[in-house]
């Protein structure tokens, strides 16, 4: 139980409009899952509902982080318990310096105020891995960042916060091939027995750099197909149409 992230029959609505209609998924530590699906299938809704965005109402089901229900927790408590969301559109917070923000976030995660040196030692290493210039830290959080910089910043935060389960919402969208490689490198580095990852993506492209253990396909608010890595290749070749025509009963990973 302590090494699983479990979504049970999750139903989510936005302003009374049902989006997710019973999603089941189990991610264990050490595993990388990819969730794919056409536009409008509810991928981002799932990401936001997992993190606890107030605009998304959970109307049924359960989300269990290491066996504990997180539905009554605000986003900050979920994060401190080891959950992470890499945003599709990271938001700009003017006037808040990267360094201040990151140090506060890291301190919240570990439950004590990080020493300045301790923080910067760790930060420096991670930034090198992601080819991030040190001037980055003096800039305001995501303000004026290019698309690629924003995504790299998400991975940097993920590296610094060391979550136990991470959801990556279309981290690959809008990235050129070089940025995609850098981001993938970061994720592969994080990959290991202490982290479970759920990659949400529209395209198969990122899965060439990050090989998932499991692939799930979300259509109209339900997972309609689950399988191994070969499912992605099949999707690439045939698109989503064959699935919507040939819907199988919603499956679970293992």
């Amino acid at each position, binding site marked *: 139980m302590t090494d699983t992230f479990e979504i049970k029959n999750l139903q989510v609505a936005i302003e009374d409009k049902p989006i997710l209609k019973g999603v089941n998924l189990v991610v264990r530590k050490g595993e990388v899952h990819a969730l794919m699906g056409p536009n409008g299938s509810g991928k981002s809704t799932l990401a936001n509902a997992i*993190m*606890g*965005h*107030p*605009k998304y109402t959970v109307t049924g089901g359960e989300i269990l982080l290491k066996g504990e229900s997180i539905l009554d927790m*605000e*986003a*900050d408590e*979920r*994060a*401190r318990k080891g959950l*992470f*969301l890499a*945003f599709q559109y*990271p*938001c*700009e*917070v*003017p*006037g*808040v310096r990267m360094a*201040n*923000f990151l140090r*506060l*976030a890291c301190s*919240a*995660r570990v439950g004590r105020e990080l020493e300045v040196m301790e923080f910067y030692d760790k930060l420096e290493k991670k930034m090198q891995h992601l080819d991030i210039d040190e001037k980055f830290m003096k800039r*305001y*959080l995501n303000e004026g960042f290019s698309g690629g910089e924003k995504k790299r910043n998400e991975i940097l*935060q993920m590296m610094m*916060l060391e979550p136990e389960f991470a959801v990556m919402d279309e981290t690959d969208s809008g990235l050129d091939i070089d940025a995609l490689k850098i981001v993938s490198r970061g994720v592969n580095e994080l990959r290991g027995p202490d982290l479970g990852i759920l990659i949400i993506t529209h395209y198969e492209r990122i899965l060439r750099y990050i090989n998932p253990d499991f692939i799930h396909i979300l259509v109209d608010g339900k997972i309609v197909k689950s399988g191994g890595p070969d499912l992605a290749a099949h999707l690439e070749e045939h698109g989503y149409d064959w699935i919507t025509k040939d819907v199988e009963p919603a499956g679970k990973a293992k």
Partner: protein
Amino acid sequence: MSTQTQDILPGAYKEGFHDDIRPLHKVAKGASHEVIDYMCDVKGEPDWMRQFRHRSLDLFRKSELPEWLPGLRDIDFDAITYYASPIEKSARKWEDVPEDIRRTYDKLGIAKEEQKLLGGLGAQIDSEMAYHNIQESLSKQGVVFLSCDEGMKQYPDLFREYFAKAIPPEDNKFAALNSAFWSGGSFVYIPKGVKCDVPLSVYFRINAEQFGQFERTLIICDDDSFCHYVEGCSAPVYTTHSVHAAVVEIFVKERARCRYTTIQNWSTDVYNLVTKRAFVYGKGIMEWVDGNLGSKRTVKYPSCYLVGDGAHGEVLSLASADKGMWQDAGAKMVFMAPNCTARINSKSISGHGGRSSYRGLVQVRDNAPNGRVQVNCDALILDDKSRTDTYPTMEVDGDLATVEHEASVSNVSEEQLFYLQSRGIKKEDAVSMIVNGFIEPIVKELPMEFAVEINRLINLQMEGSVG
């Protein structure tokens, strides 16, 4: 006697205490010619000043409150004491300040200020400057930093040449009131070419109840000089009202630069009605950094009269209107010579039902070609009980001016909150991060200790404001 209402106020206004300090001089309530005569006698002022004061009181009585300025009708000018002084003369050594007054300043942390690297420090309590001192290295270079009263005595010609030349008593009702009852404030002269790199700092404290503080400051930055003048203010919390009506006149001569920073944190029973104006000569630079965090009502539009070729004026204005406050702040830029530039950057925060207004005037006269002005005003509203308004006025004669104006009103956005919270940051910390980020462009212009103090005050006001 006064009642302290500190404990019924939201947040923690730590400056809200009052001390029992026995006034040596205190006059009967009300704005009268008798009070003026008493003040002139006690201060030993020249006749021209006595006449100036009497004439100003007549002007005050004749003038009306401006119609566009609501919310001041309930000031009872007859209930106010216009002069109160707990001291005989301004001390040059901190030890010479009477003990009860020193205790007040200790509590406010002003004694600690003295230890810091300041060019000079002044401390006014009620009507008079209890302390005024300047670093020897600066006085050796000819820098003058005195109370305004001392300035008049020690430099009568210089004083009279500039006094009331930027802001005559006819200017407005509160300038007239100040001209009639002015006492304390600073007189600063920076000689040609002298760069006063460390700030001159002054702290204004009202201790008496139903009191009127009318400090008067006159700063002359001669050619090619520089100075940074910093002022802070606070008052006890009473159930009655006090009035603070200051007049600040600044002359920035050729190529000189003056920065004037205010962190106003009056208690919420002080009407803060201040006239601040600088005359800026050829290629001179005037910068007003104006932080309004307290008071019941603030009416203040620091202004620059750009009178010389290539002069530059700047106002960075920060207002935070909490419960029971109305910050009517802004700026005024008057272009009177060619090639002048100006920038106004105003940010306001309104929460707990507070109200803030930006009121700005940009006037480009027809003998001022090739001017450029940029105005940004951004307002942040924390809840739907609070309010913000913008009243920008542009009067452009002549056609060569470039005018840019941008304004925005925003809330603490749900997306920003969610983003920060998703990183483990608690909601209240996230809100204060967003708010402090909003004012960061102005706060970063402040001296370190003021920046820290502003962030502390803003965080106090943030408590319980969202969610």
